[in-house]
């Protein structure tokens, strides 16, 4: 049963359901060491931690702004073609499918600093991230579904094809520094190694069929289409059919043998009063330069086609229809010729912005004073968070209200309500539990949709295991 579900989840991905990158549950959840990846100025509630390798953070998220799997694949007896047609027309060109996945390979961190109060925290690690976004290629879908015959006068927009996908391994080192009692800042440097990249986000042009003058129809092609890939060619090559070779290639790329890039995270946390917190972070301000293992495709050109004009050779100085036809055929061939190049290109990482306002309340009454001086001393917190991520067309935004509660010593809970492109009913729940030095957390988005995953337009799940020492322990 479980494996069947797994298959379905994978299938859902192949239907290009994707993810947002919003980690509203993890943001500010400073009992979990990985929260420092969302804001490098987050003060972790420990002296040092080591993530359990490969298990310290797993994040998986998909989202589809317009439809759910259920809309298309529901076993409801309706004709699939009808359903697909309604989906094609119902969705807008700005609707998108996204998927994100993140897996910590290793992570760790420790507090340090002069004096008794350690005012700095160094955190580091390496993770693997996959990020895909595909916009609904509406005009392409309509053209494939209906053709141009019923769309005379309609401008088919080449830019409707907008897709980017990548897998990168990221090595990072970050420093959190307490400036004073009211202010903490943090920054993180990142080295990206691209495992593969697909980028087709700068397409332009149009295709138009109109009523003509010289002939009944006139077709105007104006195409500027590019599809860049890096890291795909060597894996796809036939003469490299040995799976073990591919694995070796992938391993090398994970360890900085791929196309490289640099990035930075910044953040600050401000405590205007004992109970109020304001914090913000900017993540993945960075780029990757693709210069190895490239395969780029481009279709470029303009052409106006009215038909074939037979000039009848009996008529003097005539170009024959055959000449004319050959010219037309050549022009079409030229227009649709796919230029394959290996031009180097640069991609910008999906930069993310997080901000939060938090109000803490309900003082903790400790019977046996264990002098956890760093502890805020409040049991509850409520607040609002804003998330934005740079996407090829327009930023994707989400607004979250949350409630945080320390249930017991070593057991914390956070609930979120999020409004985003996917739904207005996204309730998320997360817990972090400390069992001795073992910290375990599970954060799940859109929990109301778990009754039927297929109906859900987005879901994310994060979990992880860390060994945490000091402070809150």
């Amino acid at each position, binding site marked *: 049963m*479980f494996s069947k*579900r797994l298959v*379905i989840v994978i299938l859902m991905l192949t239907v290009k359901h994707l993810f947002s990158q919003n980690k509203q549950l993890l943001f500010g959840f400073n009992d979990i060491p990985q929260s420092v990846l969302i804001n490098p100025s987050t003060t972790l509630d420990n002296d040092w931690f080591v993530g359990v390798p490969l298990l310290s953070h797993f994040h998986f998220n998909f989202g589809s702004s317009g439809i759910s799997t*259920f809309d298309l*694949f529901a*076993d*409801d007896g309706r004709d*699939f*073609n009808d*359903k*697909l047609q309604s989906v094609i027309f119902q969705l807008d060109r700005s609707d998108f499918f996204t998927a994100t996945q993140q897996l910590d390979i290793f992570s760790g961190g420790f507090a340090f600093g002069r004096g008794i109060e350690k005012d700095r925290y160094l955190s580091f690690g390496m993770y693997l991230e996959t990020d895909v976004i595909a916009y609904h290629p509406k005009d392409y879908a309509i*053209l*494939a*579904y*209906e*053709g*141009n*015959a*019923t769309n005379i006068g309609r401008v088919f927009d080449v830019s409707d094809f907008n897709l980017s996908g990548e897998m990168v391994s990221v090595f990072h080192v970050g420093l959190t520094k307490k400036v004073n009692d009211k202010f903490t800042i943090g920054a993180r440097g990142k080295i990206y190694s691209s495992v593969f990249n697909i980028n087709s986000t700068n397409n332009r042009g149009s295709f138009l*069929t109109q009523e*003509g003058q*010289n*002939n*009944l*129809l*006139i*077709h105007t092609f104006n195409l500027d289409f590019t599809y860049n890939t890096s890291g795909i060619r060597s894996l796809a090559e036939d003469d490299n059919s040995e799976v073990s070779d591919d694995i070796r290639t992938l391993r090398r790329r994970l360890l900085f043998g791929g196309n490289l890039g640099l990035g930075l995270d910044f953040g600050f946390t401000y405590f205007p009063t004992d109970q109020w917190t304001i914090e913000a972070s900017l993540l993945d301000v960075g780029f990757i330069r693709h210069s190895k293992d490239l395969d780029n495709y481009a279709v470029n050109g303009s052409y106006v*086609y*009215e*038909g*074939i004009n*037979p*000039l*009848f*050779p*009996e*008529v003097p100085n005539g170009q*024959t*229809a*055959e000449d*004319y*036809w*050959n010219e037309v*055929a050549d022009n079409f061939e030229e227009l649709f010729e796919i230029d394959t190049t290996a031009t180097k290109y640069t991609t910008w990482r999906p930069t993310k912005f997080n901000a939060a306002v938090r109000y803490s309340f309900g003082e903790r009454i400790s019977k046996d004073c264990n002098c956890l001086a760093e502890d805020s001393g409040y049991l509850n917190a409520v607040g609002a968070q804003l998330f934005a991520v740079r996407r090829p067309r327009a930023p994707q935004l989400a607004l979250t209200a949350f409630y945080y509660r320390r*249930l*017991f010593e070593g*057991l914390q*809970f956070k609930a979120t309500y999020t409004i985003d492109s996917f739904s207005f009913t996204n309730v998320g*729940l997360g*817990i972090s*539990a400390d*069992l001795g030095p073992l910290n*375990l957390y*599970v954060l*799940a988005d859109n*929990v109301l949709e*778990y009754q*039927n*995953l*297929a109906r859900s337009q987005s879901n994310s799940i994060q979990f992880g295991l860390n060994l945490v020492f000091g402070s809150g322990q």
Partner: protein
Amino acid sequence: MLKSKSKNRLCFFIFVLTIMSCVEDVDFDQAEDLTLTPVVASSVVYTDVEASRFSENGIELEQVSDTIANIEIFTEEFVIDNLVRTELIFEATNTINRTFGLQVDFLSNSDELLHTLSFDAQPSNDGSEVVTESTHVFEGDSQEALKLTVKMVITLRLYPSMDGSILDENSTGNITLRSKGFFYLNIPV
């Protein structure tokens, strides 16, 4: 004891939520039924012939014709597999006081005549535009014939006048021909 029990329960609850979530009544096999049925509209041939061009050295030409060879589009594998119906629509606009016959012959690689279509463009008695429309549907055998076509011969035939007059270098008026095709595809994906 109580604490850890509650803790465990909570953990358990979240795990159950994650793992036991349901995916109900979804059938991905439906995608196999997907068939695309676009209709492609395309300009075909067009021409504009002046009346005076039907005269050469004072002799009226009976017909003019032209050949388009090396047509690859109908014999493309994609077309052979997926083209199920074709409509060719011709529109002749005549301002000459003569009837013209338009004929299109479809020929195979070995110049075998596969199919012929023809229609007459009606004369204009007063020099005004007389529009004649003609639609030709290719289905079944004719559709199969089209899929073997690599050459088209277009012939414009001038029928003799009722009163014996002929077109000369000073004759006015023209005949224009415009056309388009609707190509019905059926593409199982």
